[in-house]
């Protein structure tokens, strides 16, 4: 469908309509910050948010998700949880991270739990209006996106350019009133927004092309940066919890009070936690903090790119603030390695 134009008031009416028909989850103010939460009224929508505390990952892969039910008598049955939902106002870097999760969970043998949830989610992306302090998405090519969403909203002055890319997106747009054809001036301004995003979302500067990172890391195993920076690591896993590009999980059984039935669940896990690679007998394959700290960067900038063709970081900058020790910033780490390399 060609791009349309929507006034601010028409946008509010449209959002109201969407809330009536479907569960809508969108960025809203939360104390001094922003967070994704179910939207109950259009007024709470904050398309001007800089970044949310947690990425929308929690709706695609909830912190705790039932995989199976079991009874002692009848064994196991699959439980596929899903919830039709519109993720509204998703920034491009988070859209890019969802595309990564798609690739991660759906390649080869698809994970039906992820797949079903994903299929019931419609994504309304939103170009960034305000940049967060730590963002470096432009250095990783995720300041704007051109696929991976159903609808894209871009603010141009007092109005929005809105474009649907999929039948699901068309269906949402069909609920909007006062849709106008996007005029060339508005489309030109949208181009400008995309161009500006490359500067706006570069609050930190990675001093190399991300394609160079695997080779850089190849030669950096014994670099002092790992030991030095990880000295103050609490092994708390916060840097992983807030990351839209982290997908690791743990699996646990939970018994119902009757002790005869229960559920098997998966939970978010974090490679920074000390027990992540412990096996029976107590052997820990990543015993030292430094090894766990290093693994995170290798997984993101070497193993995932080599295996899946994407870097496990979209430059949202969330881990920078989430880390109370102040050591999780990927840009600082890579730039330090680059200094040594040149």
């Amino acid at each position: 469908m060609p791009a349309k134009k929507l006034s601010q008031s028409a946008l509010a009416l449209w959002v109201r309509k969407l809330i009536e028909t479907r569960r809508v989850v969108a960025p809203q103010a939360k104390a001094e910050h922003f967070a994704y939460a179910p939207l109950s009224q259009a007024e709470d929508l904050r398309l001007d948010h800089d970044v949310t505390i947690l990425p929308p990952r929690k709706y695609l892969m909830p912190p705790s998700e039932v995989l199976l039910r079991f009874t002692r008598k009848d064994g196991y049955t699959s439980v596929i949880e899903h919830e039709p939902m519109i993720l509204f106002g998703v920034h491009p870097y988070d859209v890019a991270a969802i595309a990564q999760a798609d690739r991660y969970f759906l390649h080869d043998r698809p994970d039906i739990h992820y797949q079903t949830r994903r299929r019931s989610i419609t994504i309304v992306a939103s170009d960034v209006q305000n940049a967060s302090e730590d963002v470096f998405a432009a250095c990783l090519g995720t300041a704007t996106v051109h696929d991976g969403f159903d609808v894209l909203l871009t603010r141009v002055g007092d109005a929005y350019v809105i474009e649907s890319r999929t039948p699901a997106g068309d269906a949402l747009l069909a609920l909007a009133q006062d849709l106008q054809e996007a005029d060339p001036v508005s489309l030109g301004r949208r181009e400008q927004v995309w161009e500006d995003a490359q500067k706006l979302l570069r609050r930190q500067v990675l001093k190399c092309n991300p394609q160079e990172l695997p080779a850089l890391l190849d030669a950096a195993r014994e670099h002092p940066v790992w030991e030095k920076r990880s000295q103050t690591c609490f092994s708390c896993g916060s840097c992983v919890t807030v990351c839209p590009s982290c997908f690791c999980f743990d699996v646990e059984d939970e018994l119902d009070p009757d002790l005869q039935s229960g559920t098997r669940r998966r939970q978010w896990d974090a490679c920074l936690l000390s027990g992540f690679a412990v096996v029976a007998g107590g052997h820990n394959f990543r015993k030292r903090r430094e090894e766990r700290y290093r693994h995170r960067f290798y997984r993101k900038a070497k193993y995932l790119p080599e295996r899946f063709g994407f870097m496990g970081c979209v430059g949202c900058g969330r881990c920078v603030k989430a880390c109370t020790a102040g050591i999780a910033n990927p840009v600082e780490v890579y730039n330090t390695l680059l200094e040594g390399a040149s």
Partner: protein
Amino acid sequence: MMQTPASTTAEADADLYLPRPATVRSRTVLTATEMLFELAMDDGKPLGHMPGQFVEVSLPGIGEAPISVSSSPDGRDRFELVVRRAGRVTAAMHDCRMGERVGIRGPFGTHFPVDGVLRGRDVVFIAGGLGLAPLRSAIQYVLNHRKDYGRVTVLYGIKSPVERMFLDELDDWSRRPDMTFMETVDRADATWKGNVGVITRLIPAAEIDPKRSIVVACGPPIMYKFVIVSLYSIDVANEDIYVSLERRMKCGIGKCGHCQIGGLYACLEGPVFHYPVLLGVEEAI
């Protein structure tokens, strides 16, 4: 009006996490901490594994644990697992009686190349402790197809004589004219008349022909460090070594991230690795 969360039960076979039912057909105490279970899938079909592969064993309300298949696949619809009591799932497994039902996912992972490069070569199995459990599957396979291989040697090392498993089979192996079996214990007790010392001591004595042999090893992490050095000293090429590595596993299918060895997944590219693949991989050996 908002819709409430939906939850449906989907067709079984599409779910990678859904165990299939299997029943305990017999159990045998092997040692104070190891028990042998014979299982059969409830659908009556063979498991369909190759030696070296593992299954995820589920017990409702307790959890799941990766366990290597210890029996050879040859023409049998039953399979065997050796379970060492090590924690929650394995302890609960020890409580499983004949006729009880468990969940099985898999088989998963790579296998020892018994149907490939091992053919026509001398085969040297090096088993440390519980490492005998997965290797036994390959040893049985090779002995069942004995003429397809050259000399067959099994080296077995354990901490103390009470840890010896499969006494009848060990006895059989030591008597067979068409194979060499050698074993050693780290610490002897009053009953022990055999070799004493670490497993690497057996390697020079085993008369391994480095040009003709392929070595297949399975044991605790510490064993590999020494075994590899020892093999190097008798000129076994890295290309002729296969090892099976254990890691924490929570899915067995390349999704949970727990089993990563550098960029490799022990559940996908392993647990059996061609040793050259691991060279230069930090954390591997």
